[in-house]
């Protein structure tokens, strides 16, 4: 799958591969030894956050699950 930043797709793929392995083999099995993909995530993020700024994508200040707070049953 492509990244919104055209030049970030390769970095995204590397990070995704690392994450998917850790998620299935460690995290879901209750292994709390920590995320080994942090450095890869940082490189990928640097790229993506720049692309988001360049394209003016309005993600600033959006609270985690923000709109859910107003919903019944939340």
């Amino acid at each position, binding site marked *: 799958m492509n990244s*919104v930043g055209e030049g970030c797709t390769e970095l995204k793929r590397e990070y995704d591969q690392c994450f998917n392995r850790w998620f299935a083999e460690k*995290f879901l099995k209750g292994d709390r030894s920590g995320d080994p993909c942090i450095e890869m995530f940082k490189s*990928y993020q640097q790229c993506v956050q720049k692309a*988001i700024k360049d394209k003016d994508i309005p993600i600033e200040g959006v609270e*985690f699950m923000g709109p859910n707070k107003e*919903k019944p049953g939340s």
Partner: protein
Amino acid sequence: MVKYFLGLSVLKSSWDQVFVAFWQRYPNPYSKHVLTEDILFREVTPDNRLISRRLLTKTNHAPRWTEKYLPSNMARSAYVIEDSIVDPQSRTLTTFTWNISHARFMAVEERCVYGVNPDNNSWTEIKREAWISSNLFGLSRAVQEFGLARFKSSVTKTMKGFEFILAKMQGGIPSRTLVETAKEATDKVKETALAATEKAKDLASQAQKKQQYV
């Protein structure tokens, strides 16, 4: 005025397989309208839950009649954010998804809770709720009808996409069969969506006629 949707779906795969598939479901034959996918934020909380934010760009595949009501400079692609919490202790995945562009035209918010199916613990159930609203004066009802119709056909595609990826992960079915089944199902989805959007189009032209007499 808001349209509310509530649905319950089942995937005949275990919760952990579904959670793994959740991060790998794009691209799939049913997701042609999803153009990009990015993780913007991710963290394991002190109580060992994984929180993430995913940004998607999707084509705003809407019928022609809606174009009159969108400003001409509005981008064809819509931006959607999906926030999620994976809790391996309770074996649940909770997501909240909403569009951060085109929101005045139509706002779609969806909350899902994925968990172990209580009747068969090797299956996964998904409880899905959605709220669809539009702020366009006079047109909101038509846009909401269209929005609801499109949302329902999206749910069908989502479930098919999951089944496709899960089958691929489990290695049981030859890829070509999967792709053929995918094409048939996509055609069916298109037919259903077309019928529903025709209804919405009628509502829109009725609303327009009313306006002429005001």
